[in-house]
Structure formats: C-alpha cells, structure tokens
C-alpha cells in the first residue's frame, strides 16, 4: 500500500502513514491549525478507507500533537471514528495518545476522545526537556 509522508509546518502536522507489514508506522504529530482543515485531512481519511480494506494484524496510530484548533479536533475525531469501524470489525486497534507531562489540557483532550470513540486508548506522557 502507498505511503503517506507529510512534513510538518507551523500550522500543519507531520503525518506518516506507512502500513508495510515489516515495519509499520502511523503517526500524526506537531501542530494543527490549517487554513483549510478539510483539504488537509481528506487525503488522510481516504488513506484510512483504503487501509481498512486490508488492514494489518495490529493497527497502532500515534497521535503526538502539541496543539490543535477546534476545527482540527473535529477532523481528528473523524480519523478516530475510522479506527472505531476497524475495531468493531474485530481488528486489533490501538491509539497511543502522547501528551507533554505538564499539559493537562492535552491529557484531558485524549481522555475525551477515549470517552467518545470505542477504540482502545493508551495515554503516553512525555517530557519536553
């Protein structure tokens, strides 16, 4: 399957979606406040649709955002809902939500997503220094 690799900028996150069976890696990290959220996230949602047709044995998505605006939060939910579909189709899915250890708001945002979608979540705190 094709690989998505988008470099991060000051208003868009870095995105890696690589489902090669030997060394798969899926991560969204950095900042997200794109001018046009739909245009930015559409290719990612499309990729997930394609991926869902023939997923890996275990799907792990890392989300390591330091900031996202409310428009992005809606699109992040859309991504998580795609993973929920996978999980409900009896596939093994895990979302690893990374947050800076001094950022309660980001930690809480992860907990809220965990409440909203039916997908196993793992909260991972990291230190910035």
């Amino acid at each position: 399957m094709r690989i998505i690799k988008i470099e991060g900028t000051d208003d868009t996150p870095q995105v890696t979606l690589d489902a090669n069976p030997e060394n798969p890696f899926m991560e969204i990290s950095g900042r997200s406040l794109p001018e046009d959220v739909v245009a930015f996230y559409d290719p990612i949602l499309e990729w997930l649709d394609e991926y869902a047709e023939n997923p890996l044995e275990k799907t792990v998505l890392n989300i390591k955002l330091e900031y996202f605006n409310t428009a992005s939060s809606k699109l992040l939910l859309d991504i998580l809902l795609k993973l929920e579909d996978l999980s409900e189709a009896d596939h093994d899915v895990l979302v690893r939500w990374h947050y800076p250890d001094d950022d309660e708001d980001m930690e809480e945002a992860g907990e809220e997503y965990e409440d909203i979608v039916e997908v196993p979540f793992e909260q991972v705190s990291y230190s910035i220094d």
Partner: protein
Amino acid sequence: MAESEKNKAKLHFAYDFYKIMKESDVTFAYEGEITHEITKAFSSLAESHIALNNESNALQKRVFHVMVESLQNISKHSSERKFKDSMFAGQGIFLVTKDDQEYNITTGNVVLNEKIPALKEHIEKINSGNKKTLKELYKKKIKFGKLSDKGGAGLGFIDMVRKTGEQLIYTFLDLNDKKTYFVLTSTIFRTK
C-alpha cells in the same frame, strides 16, 4: 500655516493614541483583514511575547488557544469582507490587554442582524454552563455537529470558556437595520 497645523495634529494623534493604549493596558491592537497568515503571525508573536514574560507553559498555551479561535472567528464569520468570495478573510478589530492579573483578548466585527439571535443563544448557553456541562456539550457537538463550509466546527466559544474557566463577555452595538457590531472578550487569569 494650515499645513503645519495639520502635521501637528497628526503627531498629536499618535501621542494621544499611545496614551489611550497605555491607560487601557493595550499591548496589541489591530484593525483590518484577518487572514490565515495574520492569525498565525499574531498568535506566534503573542506566544513569544508571553514566553519572554516568564509565564507558565499552561498560560502560554491557553492564550494561544484563545487567540487562534478568536482570530479564526473573525476570518470565518465577519460579514465585512474586502472580496465577497474570500472564504477566510473577514475584517475586524483585535485587541490584547494585559495587567497584573489577567490577559484579555477582544475581537470586534460586523455581523448580520439575522445571525444575532442564534449567536446570542449559543453564547448564553455556554456562559450558563459549568465545567461538567461544557464537557458534555463539547462532546455532543464534536460528535454530532457538522463542519461548516468554512471549516468551522462550532466549538470555538466552548473551547475558549473551557480553556480559560471564564465566561465570555460580549455586547451587540446597533449599526443599522441590517448590521450590528459584535464585541467579544475572553479573559485569561495569570494566576490560574
């Protein structure tokens, strides 16, 4: 003679403007088109300014959040636009004031009268909520709400109140029978 009087008035205006800004604790003021580039530039400017003042990371992030959402509100919702079809470039004013206790982020923009009842109801609902009900409202909106054609999630005000823990302060000023000037302030306490 008339010319030099005019020049003098210009210079005095600058000084009067400076005095008003100082008296009202204004650290930043802008009037004009709010584009995405401007939103990014102002927010990072504020971010580095606040960092220099040795404020906590949490406060820095909260101010950043409120600034981005406020600026995006103007760019998406102001009814005043230089180019009618510019999706993301509304006009408005943007002010940041700061004193010992708090930062205030204020926006002002023109809205069509027909939009006011829904806007008012939306703000009042958020202002009357508490931590728990706002969390529920946020979850409900993010899950069942639809993204507008401008990419608005309808979550900006809820997010501002949740991040600051303070109600939104707002007013509507009559312009004419079609338009109203909408002013909104969000307060972030420095000690919280």
